Each structure stands twice: as structure tokens, then as C-alpha cells.
């Protein structure tokens, strides 16, 4: 059983290599095609002398033909070197390692919030299709989807920071005057909890809740709608009728019989949603000055700073592979039929 699971994981990871390789090559080529010359940018703009620009270009290796550059890049990636960011002056690996926990913490919290809200809403809507509850849920979902995240974010800031004053200054992961916990995992909430600093934990949490809620609202719709559709399909199934015919208690039918079956497709959607959120939360990171990887990649893109963008895309591709794998394994645990295949 375990050996079979291990073989499956290995097989999936091996199968993902060509896809990741393709993504790396494609991003590399696209970056080279895009307008903008990093040498000009970093030489200090158009006023810099041509000799200076040429020297910088030679130093960055941009004077060599593109295929040769690609070869060097691939060799570096294979040895774990993603290059150096010209904007921050640090290796891209270091930058990402510093910023990824911020993005992951935000995304995980947002996904958790979204699931906690979406699943009960979806269930309620499915139990009474066409009722007032169903319409309210549909309205909420539509609002969440059709409002751009930066508008939702600004609205939330306006209400909770400006009008009510409940939340702290919406910039960054933690108040600049507060002390940061020793870095253990990079996840502030975890680090504070591990060191037992509950005041710090609360500070980080209040800082996190607004951006997380903004993102959660955005992905509420797919999750709630999927829960509703999947619950409706399962509730119409023969085995639910059997459970009712056997006189099982109502909540047991809904939770144990219907929901567990209905969650299988929701799991798939949650995986997709997670991967999209990680890349798409750049707007939220910008609005809340969140020091995450997405805003880092966007800054680099504007500066024609190749290495961070390429590193970011590679990171996203790898995360996508891992998330899909995890979803697959969870699916195997949740659905005994999936293992048989």
C-alpha cells in the first residue's frame, strides 16, 4: 500500500519534469522577446554612455546569442542557482526564500477562510434550492467574483481601518514597531505560536485578516458554487435515498453520507484555486504592501529584471505540480475507488 503510494508519487514527479522544463524554457524565451533592455535600465537610463551599457551587457552575458544564454541558464537552474536580482542585489533564491512564506501564509489563510465560508454556504444553498438562502448565497458569490480584488481590498480598508478603526494600519505583515519573532518557519503566525508570544500573534493575525478576507471573497464563488452543485448531485443519488429509507438521522445523512461524497470535486477545485491565488494575489499584495513573491515578480518585470521573473515562474510551476500531487493523494485517501485504478 505504502510502496504503491510511493511509486505513484515518484511517477508523478518524474512525469512533471518535462512540463516544468518546458515552462522554464518558454519563460526564458518570452523574457528575451519582451521589449526593454535590462542593460539600459540598470546603466541608469538613456543618459548613460553607450560604452557603459555595452560593458554592463557583456557583464550580464546579454551579448551572447540567445541559445547560448539559455544553455548557461539551464546549467545554473540545474545546480540550484536562479541568478541574481539586479533590483535587490541578492540571489533570487534568497529573495524568494524570504518572501515565499509571506505569500503562502496569506494564501493558506485566505483559502481556509474561503473554505470555511463556502462549504456551509454551498450546503445551505443545496438543501433548499431556489429558496431565499440559495439566492443570497448566489448574490454573495456574484459580488465576490465581479468586484476586482483591489476594490474589495480598498473597501475593506475603508470600512475596518478608516471608519471603524478595528484593524491596524494596513501595510505589511506586522506593525513596523512591533518585534518580529525569531525566524523558524517564516510563517509569522506559526513562529509567534511556537515562541509563545501571543500578543505578537494577535498583531500578526489582525494584520493578516484583511488581505486574507479580500482574497477569500474573490475565490468564494467557485468553491461555494461547486459545493452547491456537487451537494445537489449527491443528494439526488440513490444512496441518499437508501439512507433516508433506513431512517438515519438527518444531520448524519447530510454530513457523513452527502458531504463526504460531495467534497471530492470541491477538493479538485480547491487545488486549482490555491495555485491561481498564489500567483493572482499580486493586486492584494500591492494594496496591502504585503512583502510576497507576486509583488516581487511584478516589480522585477517592470524593471526588465530577468532572473527574478524566471525564478518566480519556475517556482509557480513547481508549486502547481506539488499541489496537484497533494490533491491527488488526498483524493486517494478520500475515495477508495480512486486507488483501484
Amino acid at each position, binding site marked *: 500500500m505504502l510502496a504503491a503510494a510511493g511509486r505513484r508519487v515518484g511517477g508523478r514527479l518524474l512525469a512533471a519534469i518535462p512540463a516544468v522544463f518546458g515552462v522554464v524554457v518558454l519563460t526564458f524565451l518570452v523574457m528575451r522577446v519582451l521589449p526593454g533592455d535590462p542593460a539600459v535600465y540598470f546603466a541608469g537610463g538613456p543618459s548613460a554612455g553607450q560604452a557603459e551599457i555595452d560593458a554592463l551587457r557583456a557583464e550580464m552575458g546579454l551579448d551572447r546569442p540567445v541559445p547560448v544564454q539559455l544553455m548557461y541558464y539551464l546549467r545554473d537552474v540545474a545546480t540550484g542557482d536562479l541568478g541574481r536580482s539586479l533590483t535587490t542585489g541578492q540571489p533570487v533564491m534568497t529573495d524568494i526564500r524570504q518572501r515565499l512564506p509571506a505569500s503562502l501564509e496569506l494564501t493558506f489563510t485566505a483559502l481556509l477562510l474561503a473554505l470555511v465560508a463556502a462549504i456551509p454556504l454551498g450546503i445551505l444553498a443545496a438543501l433548499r434550492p431556489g429558496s431565499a438562502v440559495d439566492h443570497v448565497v448566489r448574490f454573495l458569490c456574484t459580488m465576490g467574483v465581479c468586484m476586482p480584488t483591489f476594490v474589495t481590498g480598498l473597501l475593506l480598508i475603508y470600512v475596518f481601518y478608516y471608519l471603524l478603526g478595528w484593524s491596524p494600519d494596513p501595510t505589511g505583515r506586522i506593525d513596523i514597531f512591533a518585534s518580529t519573532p525569531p525566524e523558524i518557519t517564516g510563517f509569522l503566525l506559526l513562529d509567534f505560536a511556537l515562541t509563545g508570544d501571543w500578543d505578537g500573534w494577535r498583531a500578526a493575525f489582525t494584520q493578516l485578516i484583511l488581505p486574507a478576507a479580500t482574497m477569500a471573497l474573490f475565490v468564494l464563488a467557485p468553491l461555494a458554487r461547486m459545493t452547491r452543485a456537487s451537494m445537489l448531485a449527491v443528494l439526488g*443519488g*440513490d*444512496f441518499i*435515498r*437508501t*439512507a*433516508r*429509507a*433506513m*431512517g*438515519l*438521522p*438527518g444531520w*448524519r445523512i447530510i454530513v*457523513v*453520507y452527502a458531504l*463526504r*461524497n460531495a467534497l471530492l470535486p470541491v477538493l479538485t477545485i480547491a487545488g486549482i484555486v490555491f495555485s491561481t491565488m498564489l500567483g493572482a494575489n499580486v493586486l492584494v499584495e500591492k494594496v496591502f504592501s504585503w512583502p510576497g513573491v507576486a509583488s516581487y515578480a511584478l516589480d522585477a518585470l517592470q524593471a526588465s529584471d530577468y532572473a527574478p521573473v524566471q525564478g518566480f515562474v519556475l517556482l509557480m510551476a513547481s508549486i502547481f505540480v506539488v499541489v496537484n500531487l497533494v490533491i491527488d493523494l488526498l483524493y486517494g485517501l*478520500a*475515495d*477508495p*475507488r480512486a486507488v*483501484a485504478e
Partner: protein
Amino acid sequence: MTAKLLEVEDLRVAFDTRRGTVEALRGISFAVPAGGVLGIVGESGSGKSVASLAVMGLLDRAGSVTGGRIRFDGQDITHAGGAELRRLRGAALSMIFQNPRAALNPIRGIGRQIADVLRAHRPLTRAQARDKAVALLEAVRIRDAARRADAFPHELSGGMCQRVMIAMAMACEPRLIIADEPTTGLDVTTQKAVMDLLAGLTRERGMAMVLITHDLGLAAQYCDEVTVMEQGRVVESAPPGRLFGAPREAYTRRLVAACPTPSSTIAGLTPDAPPLPAAPVPATLPPGTPLLLEVQGLKKRFPDGTLAVDDVSFTMRPGESLGLVGESGSGKSTISRMVTRLIDASEGEIIFEGESIGAIPARDFHRAPQRSQVQIVFQDAGESLNPRFSAFDSIADPLRRLAGLRDSASLRRAVEDAADGVGLPRALLDRYPHQLSGGQRARVGIARAISVQPRLLVLDEPTAALDVSVQAVVLQLLEKLRREKGLAYLFVSHDLNVVRMLCDRLIVLRQGRIVEEGDSARVFRSPAAEYTAQLIAAIPHFRPEVVEA
């Protein structure tokens, strides 16, 4: 008045649909005494399942009881509330459903599902409930019950799933069990085992049963009293011997006549239909007539290693009808698909009119000249018609592709000829499959196959999904076509009675091998193989001439 356990009086049920209110039950009455067995028979749309769901209070949202009374054990439960019904269901009255695999929770172990029922009605601990569940699985004769209790429905056969369902329904010793088509979709031998088990257990424990079925033979064999329903009404109600021996109502008479029995003939199934044309094909062909089909040493191994067909050989003469009989997994459908060249054989020869067609790969066979000569009619007429094609398009498709008919006038003529041939009214040609009845779809499927004038028609359970009265009409049609056109049939079926009527010769298959082969009447009268005898014995039947004294 004897104590009735369940009494249904003048029950009316209506469904709200988009096209207004539809009355599904129009005042039906029946009663079941304690420990008695009542059969409710009827064809699709008769309302027999709605009646059972109404008794259980399981009608879906659109349906509601609009009149009449349901009394269980002296208590009026017509409009009982949720809590009251929940206490009764599973504990005092319970239900067994059709399609047992879908009726069980796919991601919960079967033992736990039975334990769920027990714990819903009795104060048992988890461990006690599990022990009881294992005991129940043993009672329904599931071998190695303690280990199987952790199995999931997809790991069990259909027959085993239905045993689990029976164990669930009996878990709390209810006084009444409603079994709604409990064996539809199961093999005959499995059906017999399941029904014997169900009847035995209910009798032992003094439970009453309502058996809902479309199979008159099944009702006759297991019930004390049978109620016939048609379009939401009760037609008549009587003990099976009287009902099937001397039916009073015209509808019952037609239904009884349409049911294949060991002695029925195709003409006898539909007494009102015009007589069949005389058989044009002489019984003995002149010597030297080449064989139509010769199959030698046919084998099929699927990629997962199962040997579905193992060394099967047979021959067919022109205009002959040969039956392939077997239970699920016998390889009969695989053979039919290989002969029709839809899939490739692993080994063996298929020779059609002296030419080897087995060597032509299945994916290229549509270009072979023999494609129009060998045609197939599929089991599920609804599923095998393109939902976006009208009946006309479906029949015209092979004419366009295989016969090369392009101009619209001659195409229309050919399609109409085919439709006339199968008795499909021309007005229906513009309809889409969902606008046609089951019998009409079957006719479209047959018309599509015969439109290109094939010599060999492979019929893969063409009547399995049809009501008996529709089946009778389709069988009549097939026999008529065979006699008129001199078609040869390779008829694949699990129903020995049907095969016997339509085929001169039959082959009994089991696990991919030929068990017995011979003249239909002979095989039926004195089967040589033990397995054939079992199959014949397992067919539920009634013998009106014997029962009615």
C-alpha cells in the same frame, strides 16, 4: 377483518412538472397482511415505484400525496412528519432498491453502513454495532463476512451488493420490507439466489414483503397475492394462480400473453398483431451453399490480462438465426463486437462469405465492402442513438456513408422504406431520440441497421431495456424482417426464453467458453450441460395451465 399490516386506500399522488401537475397515482388501494407477500407488477410508467416511495414518505420535492390514506399497523402515516417517519423507516418498515451498487454509499465500508442503520434505531456502541453487522452479513451468506465488512461497494459484485442491501433492510427486524425491482439487472442465476434468500429470510422472521417488479414470472413465484397496475391505477388483484391462469381484465391478459414462457411462441406473444409471413428460406439449403459466417478459434485477451473469449468457433448459414446465451462476463457481447469488427480479436479467424474479415483491423473496417453486410443493433436504443440526430438523420447516416446515397430525394426514399419496414410512422422521422418512446427508439436502431441491406445482423440484447409488451412487439418485428428479407441473425441475450423463440440454434457461453451448442428446442427440453440446466431452472416463470385447476 384480518389484521392488515399495511393498508393503502384510494391513494393519489401528483407531481408538479413544468407542464403542469401530473397525476402519477389515481386512487390505488392495496393491503398487505402481517407476514404476507404482495406483488405489484406493471410496466414503466404504471406508478408502481411511486406507490412504494409514497408509503415510505420518500417522494421527492415535486411529488405529494393529494388524496387517500396510508395506514401502517393501524396508524395513519399518510401525512406523518419527518421525525415520526424517521423512527419508522428502517425500524418498522424498510426498503430494498433497484441497482444495489448505486444504492450504497460508494465511499463508506459496507459494514459501517449496516452499523449506521443499527445505531440509528438502537442504543449500541460502535463495537456492538459492528459485530451485529458482521452477523447480518453472515445471515445474507456473504462468505468471510468479518473481512468483507471493510469492503467498499465497488469491490463487490452486483449480487453481493444486493445481499448487503438486504442485510441493511433487515438489520432492525422491520415488520415490512418493500423491495423495488430488487433483481433487475442481475443475472438469472444471481436473481434466483437473491430472491430465494430474500423470501427465505422474510418468511423465517415473519416479515411481510411488497415485491415490486415488471417480471410477472418473479411475482408469480414469490407472492401470495399480485396486484397489476397500469397508468396509476390498479387493474386487478388476485392470487397469482388465478391472475395468470384466468386474468379478468384485457390489460392483464395482454401482459400475461406478452411474457415469454417456456412454451410461448413469438406469434403467441402478441395475439392481436397481424400474422407473420411464411418463412421464405427453405429449412435445408441446397448442398454446396457457402457458409455465411465461419468463426474459428476466436480469442480475446484484454490489456489487463483477462481472457474474455477463449477459443470459440461456430458457423452460420445464410438466413439462419443463431443465439448466443450467457450471463454477464460470459463473453457474448465481446464476441458480437469482434464479429461486427468493432474490436480486434487476439487470435482466430472470422470468415464472412468465404472472405476473411478478421484480418482487417477494426479501425479500417468501415472502408471494407463487408461493412454494409454486417450490421449491429445495440442493447440500449436510447444510448446508442446520437441525441443531436433526428430519427431521419440516424437512419440516413449509414446510407450516406456506406451506400453512398447523396441526392436528397433517393435518400429520403431509402430512409422511408427502412422506416416502413420496421413499422416506424413517417411522421416520427423528424423527432429526436428523447422525443421517442423506448419501443420507437428500438425501431430506429433496427431501421438504421437494416437500411443498408445487410446479410448478417448482430443483435446485442436489443430488448433487454424494454417493457415486456414492447419486447413482444419488437420480437415480432424482428421475426417478420427475418422472414421477409432472409436476414441472418446473431442474437445475443441473457434471456433463454427469448433466444429460444427467435433462434433455430443456440450457443451457451460461460466465462468465454462454449458450454453447449445445439438446436434451440432440444437444448431447452433436455440440456446436456449442467450449467445450461441451471440457467433454465433459474428463469422465474408461471405455468398458468398447471396453477389453474
